[in-house]
């Protein structure tokens, strides 16, 4: 099945980014195609390549890892501007994109799951 995922919260403050990651891993393990992960509102901060959590899971690396497997992980451009998240800070394999990218994921997906607060 084709599954789309939306993340509305940033790293560490809420569990949403963790839950979405574990869900995506399980979906891949079951043979599904992830048509995209859209990082929206504070969710864009999950793609911050400067995240350096001492002794804890690195959430940005996890999204980068998913993106490296061919999943289109997109952080909302406008939200990024509001949050001081610049293009040069985006973790490897993730890109910025507009709501048109979210629309594409919504259209391509058989199932769409949102993680937030």
């Amino acid at each position, binding site marked *: 099945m084709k*599954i789309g995922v939306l993340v509305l919260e940033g790293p560490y403050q809420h*569990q949403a980014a963790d839950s979405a990651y574990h*869900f995506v*891993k*399980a979906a891949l393990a*079951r043979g599904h195609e992830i048509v995209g992960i859209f990082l929206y509102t504070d969710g864009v901060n999950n793609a911050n390549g400067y995240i350096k959590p001492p002794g804890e899971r690195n959430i940005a690396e996890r999204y980068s890892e998913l993106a490296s497997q061919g999943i289109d992980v997109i952080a909302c451009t406008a939200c990024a501007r509001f949050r001081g998240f610049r293009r040069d800070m985006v973790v490897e394999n993730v890109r910025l994109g507009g709501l048109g990218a979210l629309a594409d994921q919504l259209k391509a997906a058989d199932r769409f799951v*949102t993680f937030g607060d």
Partner: protein
Amino acid sequence: MLYTINKSPLMFGNLKSALRIAPEGEPVLLYEDGVYAAAHGAATEALVADALAKHPIFALKADLEARGITRLIDGIRVVDYDGFVALVEEHPVVPWL
């Protein structure tokens, strides 16, 4: 539709609100802090027991274990992330955030 609940039922109205709208027979998934609704003995147990007569109710194993919830209300079905995905295969999702 799979109604998903991630908020504790004692401080948030999310579970009650979702149960009001979810039609009989539709599955409900408790995850993140939503799994506290699956705990035996909480003041919301009657609400959940009533709901179990109308809905299959699932609780996410990883979130139960994280929170030390060991005694569950009878009838709650525990699923892991693989089971979460299996539910999503069968039903479109209504995230009741």
